[in-house]
């Protein structure tokens, strides 16, 4: 039966198909260029993501190291503050004599509360002399 059927009606000339393929190729040039550009951009994005991934993978160790460093710093800090004179006598006022005499607030309060008589103004002036700046203001 097939030998008796009509021939294909599709064009047979190679030139016809070449021309049609050329038109389609030309029409696709713009979109394909855009795809290529976006593929390059996506690849760059993947590289960035890889860098982030490395950082994320090491994040627990970085956090642990930071915490350890903060802990060491915190432990070392109390010993360093007085020696570095962070609070100078000029900058502090009423509390400066306590620090200069190495008295804790409880010891200072004890001298006042444990005294036989209530502290007078003179006593307080002796115990807690005004800071130099305050004296000038008065």
């Amino acid at each position: 039966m097939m030998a008796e059927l009509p021939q294909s009606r599709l064009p047979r000339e190679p030139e016809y198909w070449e021309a049609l393929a050329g038109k389609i190729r030309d029409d696709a040039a713009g979109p394909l260029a855009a795809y290529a550009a976006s593929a390059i951009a996506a690849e760059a994005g993947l590289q960035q993501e890889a860098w982030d991934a490395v950082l994320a993978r090491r994040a627990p160790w970085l956090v642990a190291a930071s915490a350890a460093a903060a802990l060491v710093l915190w432990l070392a800090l109390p010993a360093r503050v007085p020696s570095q004179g962070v609070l100078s006598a000029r900058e502090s006022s009423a509390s400066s004599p306590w620090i200069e005499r190495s008295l804790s607030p409880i010891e200072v309060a004890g001298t006042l509360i444990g005294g036989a008589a209530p502290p007078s103004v003179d006593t307080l002036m002796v115990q807690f002399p005004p800071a130099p700046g305050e004296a000038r203001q008065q």
Partner: protein
Amino acid sequence: MSDAREQSDEELARAAKRGDAAAYDALARRYLRPALAVAWQYTRRIADAEDVVQEAFHRAVRALADYDDRRPFSAWFYAIVRNVARSSIGRDGRRAALAPPAPLDDEQPAPATADPVLAGDLERAIEALPPMQHACIRLCDVEGFTAGEAAEMLDISEGTVRTHLHRARQRLRDAMGQQEGMLP
């Protein structure tokens, strides 16, 4: 990159999505002839079918980013061809389905039968077939596509194609029954 002829449609489409012009060109060449054959079933004019094919490729390359390359490229692409063809014939005020029989273009080759009278009768009998039977017999028996390929082109099952082919051949036998030795 391996030879484009060895690559599957989906591999070529994946490469084209990355902007590989050679892959797209190979894919287009692979689908030019079947696309034109499908479009022709709708338009029935070669010039209109060419327009449909160009428009289908135009749309396909712009929609390529949305194509899921885990699915068959052929089904995706033929759907575009059919949609463009339906739109095309709808725009022209004709039917938005497979076109019914129409006179042959003058530019088309003559039938291959030795007897021009018989050839003309057979051509008319083919053109008188219902649209889907006509499409199946054209695609399979005339253009040489397999039933599976025709099924993808027409978006029907391979079994349905075979059924249409069987009925079409029976009709042709009936129509040409009077012609001695014409059909098996």
